[in-house]
Each structure stands twice: as C-alpha cells, then as structure tokens.
C-alpha cells in the first residue's frame, strides 16, 4: 500500500530531489556517453506538461515561426546547407534547454526557460539576417539588406550603433557562428580551433580567438555587410584575430580600441573620441547621418532593461524567491547586455517579472535544496555553462550570481551629449572579460563586495587555462581565499575547447572539494560519476 501511495505521489508531484527522500537519480535517465535520455525526466504532472507544451512544443513552433518571419525558410535551408556552425549546432537546441533546465521544478523552471526562449529568438534573428543578406547565398549579389548591415566583433557593444536604429542593422561576426554554438553543441567549434592551428598558428593562445579566426580560415563566414568594426577585446590574441579578419574579410574596417587600463579620466576622454570617430566612419560608409534622438530612445530602452536587472538582483540577493537558475542568469544577461536593446528582452522581462512577483508575494522557495549560495567568478567554460545546474542537482550548490552578469552594472545618462558619451565610453570599457577578468586587480577583487551583497558563502572560481591575464592572479586569489576564510573551489577549463579539461574532470574536482573539504554527502549520488564525453 505504501508503495502504491509513493508511486502515485511520484507520478503527481515528481520524484523528490534528495536520496534521503527516495530521490530521483537523474543520471539513470542518461544513455551514456551520448547525453541523450532513455526518456526525458518525469517532473510530476504539472511540470511535465508545462515542459512539454510551454517549453518543448512552444519553442519548436516559435523557432519555425521566427525562421519564417525573420528571413524565410529558403534562406534558412540555404544557410544550413552552406554553414557548419548553424547546421551542426542549432537544430538540437532543445537539448540545450534540457541540460540547463534539468531537475528544475515550478517557477524556477518557468523563469529560466523564458530566458532560454529569448536567446533562441535573438540567435535566429541574427543568423537569418546574415543569410538573407549573404552574397554567397545570393549568387554574389549585394542586395538591399546587405547594404544596410554592419558587421562587428561580438565584443563591440551593440549600443554604439543605436543612432542608426531601423536604418542600419548591426550583426556581430562571432556571437552566433562561435559563441552561442559552444553552449548548444560543443563539438562544432573544435573544427575551427583545429583549422587555425592547421595553418601553423600556435595552440596556446586563447581558444576563443583561435576559433574566431578558424571560422575565417575554413571560409565559413557569411558575406553580409559592406563594412566591419573590430576591437582588441579581450587581449592581444584578439588583435591577431582582427588582423586575420581584416585579411580574409577584405572590407573597410574601423578598429574601436579598448584600453587595457581604463580607470583613468584621460583614457576615458580618449575612448569618447574613438566612439565619435566610429560614428563618423559609419556616416561616411553608409551616408546616413547620426541621430541623437534615436540614440537617446534606444538608451532609455536599454536603461529599462538594466533597472529590471537591478530589481532581479535585489530579490536574488535578499531572498530565496529568485526564479532563475545559474546558467539562465549568466547567459541571458551577458547576451542581452552585450548585444544591446531588442524587443525580445523586454517581452521576456515582462514575463519573468510576473513569475518573480508571484514568487515574492507567495514566498516560494525556488531552490529548496540549496545548501550553499555560490558566486561564480571569472569567465565560464562555454562547453559546460550548465555545470551549475548539475551542481545544484548533485550537491545543492546554488549559483545565485556570476561575474558575467555583473560587468555592466550601470545605466547610461541621456541628459546631455557629453554625459551620454562619457557613460557609453564607460560601458564600452567594461566589456566582457575586460573589467573583471583582465581589467586589473581592483576589478577582479570586486568579488568580495559582490559576495557580501549577494549573501554568498562559497566561490566557484573559473580558471581559463589559456588566458594569460587571469593566470597571473591565480596565486593572489588563493592567498585571499585563505586569509578571508572563504570556501572556494576552482574550475579549470579552456573556454570553448572541451578537450583540454573535460566536463567529467570538472565534476570530479567539485566532487573532491565537496567530500574532502566540506565533508558533505551528495543530494543525488547518481550524478557523481557518469560519462557524457559525446554530449552536445
């Protein structure tokens, strides 16, 4: 009788999380080493149906709709056939959802999934814009869309193009062919890393820069814009990428520098002038004048997004009612803050606000098995950005905030041209991997302030093994962790390259820390050791 009762309870509510409660043993669902599921997780009637209808089916339907509306099916099929990074990567996107949302229940499942939906829509928008304008897919013809696009490095903030909103579309060169692919299907990028090494370039620089160059070496970049804007972010390896891009792209190119030392008013003046130069370059190339009104309107919209982000952080830092998991928080925020204002972010924030307000008003503990509140610092392994989902399911480590979310902690004044330009320069200089990764010790050590602000008791410290800038700070962090008596574990990785430190190795390091230092037992022992070597 007790067994029947338990089976009915498990059917209705889903199996409980922890082993003590007769837990769900998530890894038993895997077909190792593929990462496929024998069957997807049964999360109870309500959450399984929500996942089926509102995540799985909804996203498949809306992906088709997005493809149709933003560039059409023909361009999509041509693009899939021509470019490896889209055909090999983006079709299994629902498995990216599965990995990031594994084990989530209730409002945490809903809030996090809406973040994923926004990223998918924005990704489709970008690659469809590339394909619709691509001369390679249109018999070498430069169509009207081509003439209204500008290409740029993904680390150039989309906000510098706001003055031409609606007239010129900025499409980052690498965000979709490189950055997002690593999260969705970590196999694709390896082709590009190998390609750049095959022409004799050394294997030890940042693999991000290697991959970004490798796409060009393999001739896998759409020709979608008449001009390009590059920048030296995040390091000297990026400068080399820009050189190769200049060679292979062979287009008018404006280089928007990012200073290495930026806490200096004189340097800021220099960057302000550089941004103004970029604006003149765009006016020259496209013959469309700068619009102050458009700039202000878009910045105000972006400020709206930032203000809501601050509201989210307030709930996240002061309560256990925050409905976004670690990976959704990190990826959505870096995507949105780097790409710049876009309608989908506002629509998503509206939905997430509703969910968050429900959690707060009803005092819903969204991650009830939290044992430690973790802050993740430095840049994350792109091929295992969902490690924090695993860490919560296995150990109750709840990654409440991360460095990537916190980089652009500012709104931009729009009261005068001078103030606006000054704040834009600041935003530009606080770019990903610049402010808190290679931006000097002061910014690296902002960790301690944020740790306190977000009420964290543990640090997950990323160690990008091929980033020379961060390597120099490893020992300093070790000393500080000891002096401050902070619980911290290291996650070594090589950004997009899953061959250097595997996912299994990352899990082993965390397992070792949790057992030998923290003396804790796993919530779900099935997740301690499993083979996911072939997982997307």
């Amino acid at each position, binding site marked *: 009788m007790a067994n029947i009762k338990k089976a009915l309870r498990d059917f209705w509510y889903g199996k409980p999380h922890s082993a003590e409660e007769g837990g769900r043993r998530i890894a038993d669902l895997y077909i190792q080493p593929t990462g496929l*599921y*024998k*069957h997807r997780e049964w999360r109870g009637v309500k959450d399984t149906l929500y996942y089926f209808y509102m995540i799985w089916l909804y996203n498949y339907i809306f992906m088709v709709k997005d493809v149709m509306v933003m560039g059409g099916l023909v361009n999509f099929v041509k693009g899939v056939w021509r470019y490896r990074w889209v055909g090999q990567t983006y079709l*299994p996107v629902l498995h990216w959802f599965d990995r990031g949302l594994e084990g989530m229940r209730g409002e945490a499942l809903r809030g996090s999934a809406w973040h994923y939906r926004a990223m998918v829509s924005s990704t489709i928008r970008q690659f469809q814009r590339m394909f619709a304008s691509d001369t390679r897919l249109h018999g070498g013809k430069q169509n009207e869309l081509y003439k209204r696009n500008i290409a740029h490095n993904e680390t150039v903030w989309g906000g510098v193009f706001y003055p031409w909103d609606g007239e010129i579309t900025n499409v980052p060169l690498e965000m979709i062919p490189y950055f997002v692919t690593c999260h969705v299907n970590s196999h694709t990028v390896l082709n590009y890393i190998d390609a750049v090494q095959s022409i004799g370039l050394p294997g030890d620089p940042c693999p991000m820069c290697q991959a970004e160059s490798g796409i060009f070496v393999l001739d896998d970049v759409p020709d979608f814009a008449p001009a390009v804007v590059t920048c030296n972010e995040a390091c000297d390896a990026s400068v080399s990428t820009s050189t190769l891009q200049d060679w292979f792209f062979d287009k*008018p190119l404006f280089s928007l520098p990012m200073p290495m030392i930026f806490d200096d008013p004189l340097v800021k003046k220099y960057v302000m*002038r550089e941004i103004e*130069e970029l604006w003149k370059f765009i006016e020259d190339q496209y013959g469309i004048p700068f619009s102050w009104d458009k700039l202000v309107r878009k910045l105000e919209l972006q400020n709206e997004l930032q203000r809501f982000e601050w509201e989210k952080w307030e709930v996240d830092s002061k309560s256990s009612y925050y409905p976004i998991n670690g990976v959704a928080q990190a990826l959505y925020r870096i995507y949105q803050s780097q790409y710049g204002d876009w309608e989908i972010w506002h629509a998503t924030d509206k939905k997430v606000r509703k969910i968050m307000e429900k959690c707060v008003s009803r005092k819903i503990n969204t991650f009830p098995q939290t044992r430690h509140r973790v802050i993740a610092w430095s840049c994350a392994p792109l091929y295992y950005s969902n490690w924090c989902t695993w860490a919560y399911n296995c150990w109750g480590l709840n990654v409440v905030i991360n460095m990537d979310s916190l980089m652009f902690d500012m709104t931009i004044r729009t009261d005068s041209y001078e103030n606006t330009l000054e704040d834009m320069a600041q935003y530009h200089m606080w770019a990903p991997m610049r402010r808190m990764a290679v931006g000097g010790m002061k910014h690296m050590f902002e960790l301690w302030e944020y740790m306190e602000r977000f009420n964290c008791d543990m640090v997950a410290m990323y160690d990008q093994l091929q980033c020379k800038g961060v390597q120099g700070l490893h020992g300093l962090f070790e000393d500080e962790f000891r002096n401050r008596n902070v619980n911290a574990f290291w996650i070594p990785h090589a950004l997009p390259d899953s061959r250097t430190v595997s996912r299994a190795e990352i899990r082993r390091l965390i397992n070792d820390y949790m057992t030998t230092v923290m003396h804790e037992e796993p919530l779900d022992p099935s997740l301690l050791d499993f083979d996911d070597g072939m997982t997307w």
Partner: protein
Amino acid sequence: MCKLGKFLLKLLGVVALLNVALFCVFFFDLDGKFLFHVFEPFMKNHYDNMARKDTLKAPYDMDKFPKYDYNS
C-alpha cells in the same frame, strides 16, 4: 448526430492523437535521438566533404582602404 458534431468529434480525436504522438516524441527523446544518430552525422559528412576556398591564397591588401582616422 449532426454533421458538425461528427466533424468536431473527429477533429478532437485527431488533435488527441497528435498530442499523444508528440508527447511520445518528447518523452522518449526521439527528436534528440534522430538528431544525434541520423541528422548530425549526415550533416557532418556533408560539411567535411564540402569544397572550400583556400582563404590563405587571398592577397592581404593592407593599404587598400584608408586609415579612417578622423581626429588627426
């Protein structure tokens, strides 16, 4: 039963069947299995064997475009 009623019943049946079929695809991860075992290997084979331009043969015309230095 009127024709409309029969039609609605049939429609309901088709929708229900479609739901069950889609739920089976979802629950048993058939989409993932298809993409992993069939679609991805096929596409990889296609991309691996694609004729590609040797980009290294392109000349690097460093002076082809001006410097775009507006402040000097």
